[in-house]
């Protein structure tokens, strides 16, 4: 029986650093053959968006990401897995979410990172509100059917 990695999950207002997080998964190890990372950023929607406000459910956000990460760690032979999700006001160009998956071989790392993002989008309790440039009214982002379909790709 191979050992299952213990994922690192953080939900925070502050920024994160990709290089630091990648190094955390390789420092002192000789068994890692692949690192795949995904970073989600806030985009300005062709100049329309001034900022995103990310609301979250404290406690459940960490717990739900933890459950998704544990499932990925059971499903693929990972040597390390880190997930960081920010909340609060985030401006275009800033980071929102980071997934870093490390594995002896590339396929597991690619698939685990992809799986994590698909599940995060539809199951982690976060909600985005868009602040439009030049307007005082802000609107909630609507969930896309596409995100549900992305998640279903992983059903066995």
């Amino acid at each position, binding site marked *: 029986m191979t050992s299952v990695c213990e994922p690192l999950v953080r939900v925070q207002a502050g920024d994160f650093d990709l290089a630091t997080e990648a190094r955390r998964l390789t420092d002192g190890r000789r068994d890692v053959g692949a690192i795949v990372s995904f970073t989600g950023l806030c985009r300005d929607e062709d100049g329309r968006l001034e900022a995103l406000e990310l609301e979250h459910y404290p406690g*459940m956000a960490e717990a739900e990401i933890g459950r998704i990460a544990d499932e990925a760690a059971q499903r693929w032979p990972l040597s390390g897995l880190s997930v960081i999700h920010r909340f609060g006001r985030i401006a275009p160009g800033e980071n929102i979410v980071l997934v870093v998956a490390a594995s002896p071989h590339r396929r597991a790392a690619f698939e685990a990172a992809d799986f994590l993002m698909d599940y995060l989008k539809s199951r982690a309790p976060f909600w985005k509100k868009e602040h439009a440039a030049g307007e005082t009214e802000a609107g909630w982002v*609507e969930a896309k059917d596409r995100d549900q379909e992305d998640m279903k790709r992983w059903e066995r």
Partner: protein
Amino acid sequence: MKLIYFAWVRERIGLPEETVDLPADVKTVADLLNWLKERGENYETALERPEVIRVAINQEHADHAAPLPANGEIALFPPMTGG
């Protein structure tokens, strides 16, 4: 029972959370949504399309047929848009 609301559910109800005494015949999540809708126009507006409302019982996702726990925390919110 502690109820917590997020995103537009919170805005439309006008409260982030509240503690309520549920009648004995409110046994499932679906019963809870129906009962809340009767509490006023703000609840009715927030829950007018109950099928889109997502629910967590003690910080875990639950469906509308799920039985309510004896006590704990029920969260109501729109479909999630993180990531």
